[in-house]
């Protein structure tokens, strides 16, 4: 297979809580503009690994990393790495939709406000584009000022997705994004994955093998902190 150059490269990565390794000596390369799924039983370390890619685990007590985590050609744990910029370029979507108790529009531009404070004039246009990409524009275009918490769970998750997409990330990490949604909403988000991969690389953690079969360009199976062979 003639894969394009990898966007994520892990070399002998071991992640520990205290002494206990949750991810044990993983080597992995993930290609650009693909949907890559990480699946495995709960507790197999897939979510921990995913969150490490944008250094969301830094503040967990006792958490430590050894090995090399390279994202977008950059060692994420190098002292020179700007964590905030890294997280802008590597978006993360959580399992439980989390919207702020503000209006829909304010939620979408929440990150933009801080990353591009000088471009306020363009926010409505950027918000619209993000909402379109997240497949939510048609449903909310008439009530952008309505409180976001009034949306359904599925809509809230797509709003969270739009909020992340508004920052134009190069990689999108999804941590069981459909696990707390109804089947219909899940299907919508699964369909979005296919269109989004033209724009960025997706790494999708799921515990559901059937979902991995539906969406993945490449499936990686995890168990006990290691990658299973032949995946």
């Amino acid at each position, binding site marked *: 297979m003639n894969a394009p150059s990898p966007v994520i490269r892990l070399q002998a990565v071991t992640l520990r809580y205290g002494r206990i390794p949750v991810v044990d000596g993983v080597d992995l390369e993930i290609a650009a503009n693909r949907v890559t799924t990480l699946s495995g039983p709960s507790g197999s370390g897939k979510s921990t690994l995913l969150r490490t890619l944008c250094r*969301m685990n830094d503040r967990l*007590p006792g958490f430590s990393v050894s090995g090399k985590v390279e994202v977008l050609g950059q060692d994420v744990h190098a002292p020179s790495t700007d964590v905030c910029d890294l*997280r*802008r370029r590597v978006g993360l979507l959580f399992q439980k939709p989390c919207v702020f108790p503000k209006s829909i529009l304010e939620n979408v531009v929440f*990150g933009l*406000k*801080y990353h591009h404070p000088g471009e306020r004039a363009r926010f409505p246009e950027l918000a619209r584009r993000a909402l379109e990409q997240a497949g939510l524009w048609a449903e909310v275009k008439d009530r952008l000022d309505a*409180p976001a918490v009034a949306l359904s769970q599925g809509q809230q998750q797509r709003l969270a997705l739009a909020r992340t997409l508004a920052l134009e990330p190069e990689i999108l990490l999804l941590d069981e994004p459909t696990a707390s949604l109804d089947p219909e909403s899940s299907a919508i988000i699964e369909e979005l994955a296919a269109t989004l991969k033209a724009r960025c690389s997706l790494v999708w953690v799921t515990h559901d093998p059937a979902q991995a079969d539906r969406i993945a360009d490449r499936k990686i199976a995890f168990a006990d902190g290691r990658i299973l062979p032949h995946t």
Partner: protein
Amino acid sequence: MRRLLHSEIDFRHPFVLITGLLTALASGVVVFLFLFLVIQGQPAFTRMGFAFFSGEEWIPGETYGAWPLIYGSLVVTGLALLWVLPPALGCALFTSEYLRPKARVAMKAAMELLAGVPGILYGLLGVSFLAVWVRDVLGLIDGNTLLTASLLLAVMVLPTIMTLSEDACRAVPSEYRDTARALGLTRAEVVFGVVLPQALPGIAGAVLLGLGRAMGETVAVMLVIGGLDRVPLPWYDITQPGQNIPSKLGREAAEALGSGLHWNALIASGLVLFLMVMLFSLAGNFLLKRKRA
């Protein structure tokens, strides 16, 4: 009866009777207290009329104008709030958002101890240190001023406001923080963009409760406020001695001895103070307990 009690309760059971009696006793004491305040204070209101609130002269046996006391209470409390807010909030945010769990627990314990330091000790510290500093720094003849009292009160309510505000910050769900972090916000942006706005009602509640505590404090203020029943001239000169309601009560109650209009006037100003504190406390409690929409 049936509608008041839990359905499975037999109200003839001694347990119900005993606890019921104790509850009635506890509530009764409170009701008695309030009736007492109203009945004992009422003659001052009827005799003095509105002049009780607006009069500037308080001469036992002649006239009782409580405006200087009310003014003193408001000014001292307001200024205390001004001094205490920035450090208390900074301390709360740092403790909840930056400190490691162990350091946080230590900080909270320190604040709880600080909140328990008896008022009389703050008074002693105020007399020996703060009043002297205020006198020397500002070049005053007497260090016992409205300013001194407000500074001392600020120190006294700092731990209360800090602990309660910190609780309000901790109550902001961590998903909000994680989401903001995942979007690449810096720590300070997470704190001021997400945590602070979410915690604001709780913080306002904390401040109001602290305010109530500050308004009722007696001995510490009594020792450093100066004890002069006068609105300073000009009215904004806080480097002059003044008086507030609790301090007035503490100084004069023993001589007023439970009879005559002098006593009624003291109780009446106590009632005014109680109502102000109650207002702040209820508003504070409402804000603290308010559930997120």
